[in-house]
């Protein structure tokens, strides 16, 4: 309660808010400018599509933020994502006749994602290999597995239920968006209001101090990989429900986009601070950019270029604001 009222007080201090949330300001300005140029842009269906677009990657970005807060990092999320699409499609084609079969396919896919995360976690915590190298290796291995399994071909599914899942909506809001929002809400709650979350912050803030305070730091590092494995598999299922296919070509940029959204949102790469809510904004900025480019008639290929530019500009602006903020201290 206390903290909430403090939060309110803070938001009245506009200057401070700008310094702390530059991304939100950029996001607002950008939306307004495009909105003026192209009034349709802020139309209901476009906003709806925007949220739909960011849901899949957003789920992973959210857990990538948790990993980064914990001082870890997972490059293999892209491959887990790819593998999960393929596995889920394959299982759907085999078991998809009954509701139970669909549920089983989803559960098996989620477990397979968690197993991949678990292996990452064990390598990092037991063999003490840094997460960059570990997950780079895992990324290549899992992609290799996916290539061997499919011969590089796309696997498609015509399962009716799953198609409904991907396109259906409740009260005008797509199911996938509900999944994303609920996912972020849970992650936000866990990180802010639970012991589990606090210990992840402590581990990322200073792993030695956390360990010497009696916190099982290795357990938290391990769990972070399991969680991101789970999220990557969930994202895979979500994508399949949208495009009704899985392919080694879908989502190779997932891990790096997730890191970009985290950083654009304002979570520091050094660990110990940040928030999944900020990353939600980061995803919105990326999503709105993508939409805007299409609206303005630019080729989709510009997306990558612009994404990179935004990343650098936002981070530079943030660093600048931080520095000028520090001088006042």
């Amino acid at each position, binding site marked *: *309660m*206390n*903290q909430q009222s403090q939060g309110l007080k803070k938001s009245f201090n506009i200057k401070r808010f700008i310094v702390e949330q530059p991304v939100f300001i950029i996001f607002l300005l950008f939306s307004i400018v495009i909105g003026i140029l192209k009034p349709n842009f802020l139309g209901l269906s476009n906003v709806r599509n925007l949220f739909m677009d960011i849901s899949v990657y957003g789920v992973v970005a959210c857990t990538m933020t948790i990993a980064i807060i914990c001082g870890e990092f997972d490059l293999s999320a892209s491959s887990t994502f790819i593998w999960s699409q393929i596995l889920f499609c394959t299982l759907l084609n085999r078991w998809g006749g009954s509701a139970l079969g669909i549920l089983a396919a989803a559960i098996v896919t989620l477990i397979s994602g968690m197993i991949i995360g678990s292996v990452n976690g064990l390598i990092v915590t037991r063999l003490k290999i840094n997460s960059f190298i570990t997950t780079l290796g895992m990324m290549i291995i899992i992609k290799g597995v996916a290539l061997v399994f499919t011969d590089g071909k796309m696997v498609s599914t015509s399962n009716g239920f799953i198609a409904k899942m991907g396109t259906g909506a409740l009260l005008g809001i797509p199911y996938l968006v509900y999944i994303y929002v609920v996912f972020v809400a849970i992650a936000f709650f866990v990180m802010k*209001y*639970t*012991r*589990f979350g*606090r*210990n992840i*912050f*402590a581990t990322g*803030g*200073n792993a*030695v*101090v*956390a*360990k*010497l*305070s*009696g*916190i*099982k730091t290795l357990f938290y590092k391990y769990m972070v990989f399991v969680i991101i494995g789970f999220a990557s598999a969930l994202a895979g299922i979500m994508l399949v429900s949208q495009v009704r296919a899985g392919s080694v070509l879908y989502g190779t940029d997932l891990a790096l986009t997730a890191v970009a959204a985290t950083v654009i949102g304002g979570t520091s790469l050094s660990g*110990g*601070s940040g928030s999944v809510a900020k990353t939600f904004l980061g995803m919105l900025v990326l999503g709105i950019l993508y939409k805007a480019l299409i609206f303005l008639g630019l080729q989709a290929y510009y997306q990558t270029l612009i994404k990179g530019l935004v990343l650098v500009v936002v981070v530079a602006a943030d660093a600048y604001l931080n520095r000028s903020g520090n001088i*006042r*201290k």
Partner: protein
Amino acid sequence: MKGITKTFPGVRALDDVTFSVARGSIHGLVGENGAGKSTLMKILNGVLYADTGEIIVDGQPCRFKDTKEAQAKGIGFIFQEFNLINTLTAAENIYLNRLKIRAGRIAWKQVNQDAQALIDELGFNFSVTEKIIDLSAAQKQLVEIAKALSFDAKLIVMDEPTSSLTTNEIEKLFEIVKKLKSEGITIIYISHKLEEIYSICQTVTILRDGQIIDTQPVSSISKNKIIELMVGRSVDMEFPKRNTVPGEIVLDVQNLTRRGIVKGVTFNLRKGEVLGIAGLVGSGRTELAEAIFGAEKHDDGIIMVKGKKVAIHSTYDGKSNSIGLLTEDRKETGLVLDFNISKNITITNLPKVSKSGILINRLEKQYAQQFSDELGVRTPSINQLTINLSGGNQQKVVLAKWLFSDVDILILDEPTRGIDVGAKYEIYLLINQLAEQGKSIIMISSELPEVLGMSDRVIVLNEGKKKGELSRDELSAEAVMHMIIRSEGENGGNN
């Protein structure tokens, strides 16, 4: 330095400070943490600018925009923490960014020769082609001095240069400092350890709350007077007394061994007792503490808590068995500096402020405030980041976090390192309070008077072995040193 004033928002860090140092002297600068010593020296170094006032070097007014300009005027700095790059050699560090280039490439032979000459001149012999990481603390300190000399420094500021050195190394450092003086180099020597000021300085300046309180020749001012001037009130330098009778045995350590570091140490600890561990740096004191707490694994031995044998393989096990460890380096291993006071205090015992895994914000703040108040942490708010606190206050937060954990056995490794006299005394009072509440304390310290003054009983370690045990009545510096020296002799015989 004349009329220097520096204000930070809300604080006047330096208030019209005029400070002069005679050429070729060793000038001590003392003051509590936060008195303004560092700020003053940072202005001299060009890291900060003064709001008003001027710096006069050899009669010429100067204004330093950065460290490089200060260096050019012959002002060198040696800080408490080493400013060396571990993976480079001593010579590379000395001539960092100034490596001599000949014919388009680095003249390694010349560089190494020059560096070696500097080191040799200081009367040490080790090779400058060794990497910093392979050098001892004293050798690193020497590299810092050599680096300052390589700039032709006329004035060297040393900020707590002995904090990571052993007694022997300190003596060697003092010889070098005296030698530098005899060569006409001026030294400003900042230290918390007044013994050091007395053994090498001619003059001492006392700074308090951003003002110069007094400057005196050390020969005409007593230690107690200096302390009084530093804290602004008279301080009883005796260690505070406590009225406790140690109770039953709560911790029984038998034959604890870490291969090559701790060799079969056996001792026990009673309820309400303060057990000192004396020994030189590197005697295995810290390593023993780590093994008991579970920060490092032990290879052999038994640990019994309250009569029951316990298995301690991790810090979590240690805490679960009611053991806490306050580490010697509060910045690196004691606090999450980017966390506020509140979060740092509750870190050891989140279950106490949560229900089924969910944190109760109100309860957390309430406890954090209570512990912060009880320990007398001086801060406007418990939401303050610990990185902004002074050393003494940081140490109190570390103590608070272990008190909050409700452990009964607390190992304090160098609990007063690098904090000022006033804060030290407060820490001593807290230790007594804890003992009176029935907590059992193991206190490790490099400062022998502290161990002697605070402990009910002392065990002496040397080279990983327990060399003896002294009860309150037998305690004296001579007895402890005797045990250490006797064992050195034994080892000599064995080899």
